[in-house]
């Protein structure tokens, strides 16, 4: 499926995977794709920037949706089963030093070849990106098509964008425009 992806679109898919890995999420969803697109690709990044979206803004919007997925342990959830994270933290730090419990067991960069599957929504978004590329730009799939795929799929990634104040219709229109012009 990826053979018609441009370098930048491939880069975005790889970056989405890394984002998922870094967050400790067990899936690659359209939200990770959006984050990757905002982060490191020229075409989609420019479109997103115009819409006021940066990777930082997206990250800030994502945190509450994924309790404990990042570096922070989920103190509230642990409390519900009678574990006081503060107590645990104090005990562990007595032996291992301050901040010991904040250390991730296996730093993401060293974790090779962990398989993280795409969500159904992300697969759908990739398919839609392929379709958009065929319609708008003669078939080769760029990051702008990925963005369109995510928007058209209408799942987690699209919701994330809406949650940071993006008008999906508007963003879609500017992205289509960009895709046509760069075709």
């Amino acid at each position, binding site marked *: 499926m990826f053979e018609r992806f441009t370098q930048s679109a491939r880069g975005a898919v790889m970056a989405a995977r890394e984002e998922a890995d870094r967050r400790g999420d067990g899936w690659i969803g359209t939200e990770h794709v959006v984050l990757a697109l905002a982060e490191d690709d020229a075409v989609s990044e420019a479109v997103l920037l115009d819409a006021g979206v940066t990777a930082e803004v997206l990250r800030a919007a994502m945190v509450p949706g994924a309790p*404990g997925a990042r570096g922070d342990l989920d103190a509230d959830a642990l409390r519900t089963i*009678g574990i006081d994270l503060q107590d645990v933290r104090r005990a562990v730090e007595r032996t291992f030093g301050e901040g010991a419990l904040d250390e991730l*067991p296996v730093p993401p960069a060293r974790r090779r070849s962990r398989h993280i599957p795409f969500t159904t929504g992300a697969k759908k978004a990739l398919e839609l990106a392929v379709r958009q590329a065929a319609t708008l730009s003669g078939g080769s799939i760029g990051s702008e098509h990925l963005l369109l795929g995510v928007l058209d799929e209408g799942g987690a990634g699209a919701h994330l964008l809406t949650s940071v104040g993006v008008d999906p219709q508007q963003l879609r229109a500017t992205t289509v425009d960009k895709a046509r012009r760069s075709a």
Partner: protein
Amino acid sequence: MASASDLLTSAASENPDDGLRAVVALRQLLERLEHLHVQRAREQGWSWQDIARALGVSRQAVHQKHGSSIRLSGRR
């Protein structure tokens, strides 16, 4: 303010969402504790076999899980 036992009975039973979230949190805590202790054991010269026995898993399992991260963090 609910007492600890209220929280326990409410959250340990009914709602899968809360229950599963607690499981995830506990697993993350467990993983970190395990890593810290395995690392320390290695620093104190324990063999992978000793650590595996203490953890009740196979030597392969413990080495596969911790081998690369602990070796790379400076100590053999």
